């Protein structure tokens, strides 16, 4: 049994950023990690994945990017190396191979049960990630047994898939990247496309992340947006980090020969059914993208950047097939596997506290939960638009550490 002020659950970028902030404030804490540092980045990503944010942006507090390629995109081994180095240099008190089994409230705080004993603490920081479980729709259960199913967490490389056609469901960041490399491996891909957020990798000579930062979008706060639930549900930007400044959109995939179909809405009698809404999904994504680019153009005008940035070259409208496929016969079309790239959700099955809503999502105000001394990090737009990015962890950790320290001071004073 250990008594300690604060337990941080998870030694990924969020947990390590929080550890650094708490150390700066002399808060006694431990970082519990079920595997090794950066465990999810090590074990739950596919081989070719690179970060979607450029290196100059993918930083943690006190650790600016000092490598040779600020505009490049880190591979997973590079990121893992940096996170390990960050933990070592900061002296983060990480206890690895320690899985949290349960968190309960008790009189003076929380009881954290792990595979290596019990911790009693006043504060708990949930930094266990936003992507613990890959979502799959209910109809996934209807897919014929002969078809193998994967998620972006279980998929590693094209060679692991049967040498047949592949249905990739979901056209956000994970879906489009996996669709491209699987199709390139000679397995013909059909990509089911629902709501998605199309952006060019770069615009007017600058990475899109650079523009989003410049326009203040990344620093937009949770308490300053009108429809928080909607922005928290917004799918990830349709981006890829591989290949400098290369845009990966539906047009690029169509050029590769990937077949684009509507959102998967049913599986019946060995056939997948797709929605007839594809044209509208694409039109809406094009309009939304162009509004963002309009905002960038307006910013360029206002700040007289015209002479230092590139021309206003827009991506062509998404080419939608005139008669998109509505049904796909798994047997007849020789589909060997389905990859559900339909989003992720966190797993709080071990959190035995009344802090979730009816859909199992944490109820919180900017990461401060409705239970004293309980905090969460790393979820979409938890405090800012950038909260979901590695670079968002520093600010969120600073704000929540400040809250934690102020609360502890009040407790002592009382």
């Amino acid at each position, binding site marked *: 049994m250990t008594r300690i002020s604060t337990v941080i659950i998870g030694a990924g970028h969020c947990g390590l950023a929080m550890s650094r902030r708490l150390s700066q404030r002399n808060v006694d804490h431990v970082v519990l990690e079920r595997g090794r540092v950066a465990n999810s980045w090590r074990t739950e990503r596919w081989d070719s994945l690179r970060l979607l944010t450029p290196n100059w942006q993918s930083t943690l507090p006190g650790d600016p990017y000092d490598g040779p390629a600020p505009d490049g995109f880190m591979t997973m081994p590079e990121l893992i190396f940096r996170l390990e180095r960050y933990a070592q240099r900061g002296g983060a008190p990480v206890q690895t191979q320690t899985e949290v089994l349960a968190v309960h409230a008790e009189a003076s705080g929380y009881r954290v049960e792990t595979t290596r004993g019990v911790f009693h603490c006043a504060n708990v920081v949930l930094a266990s990630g936003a992507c613990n479980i890959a979502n799959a729709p209910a109809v996934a259960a209807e897919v014929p047994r002969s078809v193998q199913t994967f998620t972006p967490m279980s998929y590693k490389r094209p060679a692991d898939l049967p040498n047949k056609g592949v249905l990739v469901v979901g056209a956000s960041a994970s879906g489009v990247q996996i669709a491209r490399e699987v199709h390139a491996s000679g397995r013909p891909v059909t990509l089911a496309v629902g709501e998605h957020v199309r952006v060019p990798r770069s615009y007017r000579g600058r990475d899109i992340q650079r523009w989003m930062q410049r326009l203040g979008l990344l620093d937009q706060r949770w308490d300053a947006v009108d429809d928080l639930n909607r922005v928290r549900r917004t799918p990830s930007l349709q981006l890829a980090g591989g290949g400098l400044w290369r845009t990966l959109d539906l047009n690029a995939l169509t050029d590769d020969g990937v077949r684009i179909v509507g959102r998967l809405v049913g599986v019946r009698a060995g056939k997948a059914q797709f929605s007839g809404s594809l044209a509208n999904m694409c039109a809406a994504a094009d309009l939304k993208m162009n509004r963002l680019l309009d*905002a960038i153009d307006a910013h360029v005008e206002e700040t007289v950047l015209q002479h230092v940035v590139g021309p206003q070259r827009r991506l062509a409208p998404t080419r939608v097939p005139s*008669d998109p496929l509505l049904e796909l016969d798994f047997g007849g079309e020789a589909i060997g596997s389905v990859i559900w790239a339909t989003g992720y959700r966190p797993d709080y099955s071990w959190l035995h506290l009344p802090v979730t809503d009816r859909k199992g999502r944490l109820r919180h105000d900017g990461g401060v939960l409705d239970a004293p001394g309980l905090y969460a990090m790393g979820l979409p737009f938890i405090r800012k638009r950038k909260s979901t990015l590695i670079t968002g962890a520093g600010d969120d950790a600073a704000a929540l550490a400040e809250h934690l320290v102020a609360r502890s001071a009040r407790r002592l004073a009382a």
Partner: protein
Amino acid sequence: MISNTPDTPTADGDIAMTAGGWRVSTLARIGDLVGALTGGGRSTAQGRDNANADKKGNEMQTQSIANNGVNVEALLGAREALTEAPEAAMFKWRARCEWIDGAHSRSTVDGFFGLGAEQRRPQPHVVDADHPAEFAAMDNGATPVELVLSALASCLTAGVASVAQNRGIQLRSVKASVEGHMDIAGILGIDPEVRNGFSMIRVHFDIDSDATADEIAAVVAQSQKRSAVFDILTNPTNVHVQVDVRDDVHNDDVA
């Protein structure tokens, strides 16, 4: 926000909780409209999330308040209230239909279940359906498939009006024409490979408003995104049909 006190009127008096559940007063077109009111695009005067909205839209919005006859406040209030009380959002829509003669039938819609209780309109609505003379019928009403097209047009048009108002866009006229393509070799049983339903539907909107082409395109896109009939037509739905057989038939007829 809805008060938990029975019979307490809400801020705008549009939904109130009664002892027996939920009561509607002026919750117009809730099926199509609640939820039609979010999404990117032109922002409203209330400081909607407008990271992507262009400045011109904001200026136009503050100059004049659009009025398309949609009670946006009531719908936004309903949306907020139903978020807090998800069971009240469970609706059952109904229609009754009676055969008259030949292909002619008459449907009546009056009651529905929603907001936790049975609801009833003051007057029933009656819709006749028939087939045209080309099908050797009496043409006493639109064909059922034309009613489906008209339902799609009406649903999208109602959505356009409400989304536009929420975004501060004044509509002057909205006209929709809808065309459903069908090979009737399906319904006539000539070719089993031809489906009975539409092979494709085209909708054309002609909209006169104070907004730019892109803003209107965004309104129409959002209207599709939140349209019940668009969803019904583009996605599969399980349909369960039961039959109550009158058992007073003569055995001779059955044989």
